[in-house]
């Protein structure tokens, strides 16, 4: 196989005495989607921050196009073709769409003290690039905060593609989105892959991951809990591992003993809840796996 665009080999990261990431390995190839799955606190964010250049790793090796490196700033990661789209902090809400689109890489025209933003080009390019992805904005001057979550993600993806990213890192792009919007976003993820980009898709939704992913890396409490290719794992198996496997079985067992589900089934003629019985059930049901 060709050299991976990004390769992590036994990468670890500590924050003081907290072990955030331990011995994680993954590869990102051009034209493929690598999904990183994990529950809250599994180390997904730390992994992103290392690839995006926000934090440097402590141990292990990070290779970009075969060359060993440690990224010291987001700018450096961007210059090496790694673009990261964050779930919540991808954009500046009060700024117009076109200013957001070019933020940090603004084209200029003119010389010396008259060097200025190429506003006409910025507006036109933003509109054209978004149209290409099927987003028809009523006004590129509207603050980006007025767009829906899905549209904002798509603007961010379009931005990364436009700036010639080779690797696209997506942090939970479908979290907090509805079914239809998630579909739209996943379509653009697939479009980016077809354009030859290597994609890292971070998610805690195995359904979305299995739809588009080629490789799957499972994280649990900062360490790797599994690594699969699409052929070697079914959606059910992925969901099971993702949800914690045997822990899920235990949870199901506990929930089955609870009296509450039986009552819900009887057509709405529920007796008033008995606080004496409901409380212990509640406590068991919420136990963290």
């Amino acid at each position: 196989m060709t050299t991976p665009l990004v390769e992590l080999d036994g990468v670890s990261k500590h924050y003081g005495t907290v072990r955030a990431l331990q011995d994680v390995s993954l590869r990102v190839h051009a034209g493929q989607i690598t999904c990183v799955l994990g529950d809250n606190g599994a180390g997904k964010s730390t992994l992103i921050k290392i690839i995006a250049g926000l934090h440097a790793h402590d141990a292990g090796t990070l290779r970009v196009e075969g060359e060993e490196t440690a990224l010291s700033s987001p700018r450096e990661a961007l210059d090496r073709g790694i673009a990261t789209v964050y779930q919540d902090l991808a954009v500046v809400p009060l700024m117009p769409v076109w200013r957001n689109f070019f933020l940090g890489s603004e084209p200029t025209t003119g010389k010396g003290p008259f060097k200025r933003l190429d506003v006409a080009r910025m507006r036109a390019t933003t509109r054209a690039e978004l149209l290409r992805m099927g987003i028809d904005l009523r006004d590129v001057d509207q603050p980006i905060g007025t767009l829906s979550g899905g549209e904002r993600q798509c603007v961010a993806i379009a931005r990364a593609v436009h700036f010639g990213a080779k690797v696209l890192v997506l942090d939970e792009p479908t979290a907090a989105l509805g079914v239809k919007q998630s579909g739209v976003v996943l379509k653009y993820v697939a479009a980016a892959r077809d354009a030859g980009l290597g994609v890292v898709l971070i998610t805690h939704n195995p359904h979305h991951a299995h739809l588009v992913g080629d490789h799957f890396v499972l994280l649990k409490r900062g360490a790797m809990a599994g690594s699969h290719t699409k052929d070697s794992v079914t959606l059910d198996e992925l969901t099971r591992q993702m949800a914690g496997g045997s822990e899920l079985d235990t949870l199901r067992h506990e929930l089955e003993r609870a009296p509450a589900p039986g009552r819900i089934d009887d057509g709405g003629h529920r007796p008033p809840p008995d606080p004496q019985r409901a409380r212990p059930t509640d406590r068991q049901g919420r136990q963290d796996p």
Partner: protein
Amino acid sequence: MTATAPPADHGTAPDERLLPASPLKKLLTRPELGSVVGAAAVFLFFAFVADGFLRAASLGTVLYAASTIGIMAVPVALLMIGGEFDLSAGVLVTTSALVSSMFSYQMTANAWVGVTVSLLVTLAVGFFNGFVLTRTRLPSFIITLGTFLMLTGLNLGLTKLISGTVSTRTIADMEGFASARALFASEATLGGATLKVTILWWLGLVAVATWILLRTRFGNWVFAVGGNAEAARAVGVPVRRTKTLLYMGVGFCAWVSGQHLLFSFDVVQSGEGVGNELTYIIAAVIGGCLITGGYGSAVGAAVGAVIFGMTSKGIVYAEWNPDWFKFFLGAMLLLATLLNAWVRKRAEATS
């Protein structure tokens, strides 16, 4: 969790949303609208109640008052758009004048030497503010409160130590004083109105700041670091450098303002400037700058300064007790902010 949320229908935009926004709507979304309406109201009010307010001579006086505040309101507004405050801005103006005066006097040097040293000092103070802020990530309120107090103490302490009194000695007989005075404190008469050169400085700074904000990469970054610093950093904006430069911009304007003080009065009182930092902030807020950052304009801050100038001088022309000034100011601040919030909400809801 995500699978059960109702789909919001925004995936692809339907054509009926492509209505052109009317020019009026666009005007309503400008940050400085509230201040322009406020300025018109204040102007009309004093035009009716104060006899001398509409005379050409009064115009010069009002513009002069507006310009002295406006010169500082511009960088303070930019800083506020960038998400930070500078409480040391008021006393830094005095520091600028003191350094310039005392350096020239003690070294018996050309006045321009003092002017240059003063510029270096104000830029250094701005850099210090920005550097400490971006390294410690403490709130700018605390850090600049610290520099504010330190500068206040230094102004008084050093002046007494060096001059023996609380004010500086005259430097009017020094070489270079006349030419520096021409640059910082000259005046011209135009149709019965005496116009000070500070008005030119002020308008020039507003123009440059507006150009920077709207048409340069740096301006884009200013909005970004104030609106969402993390997002800005993530797309490669140098957040620390942007904020530090904004503080140095405050330093530069404090230098201009301080040199004006020195060369128009010759003697500088070391205790001056305390409280002015709030005046600048109020002018910026009246002008539509969002106190949380990421939104505002230099023109708005200029209009805020005009409101200040009209109110402070209008009360004099109306022959009222100047004690009422502060009351008017407070009321103006509240009204302008409320009007701003209301206009913006309406404009965004219906655009």
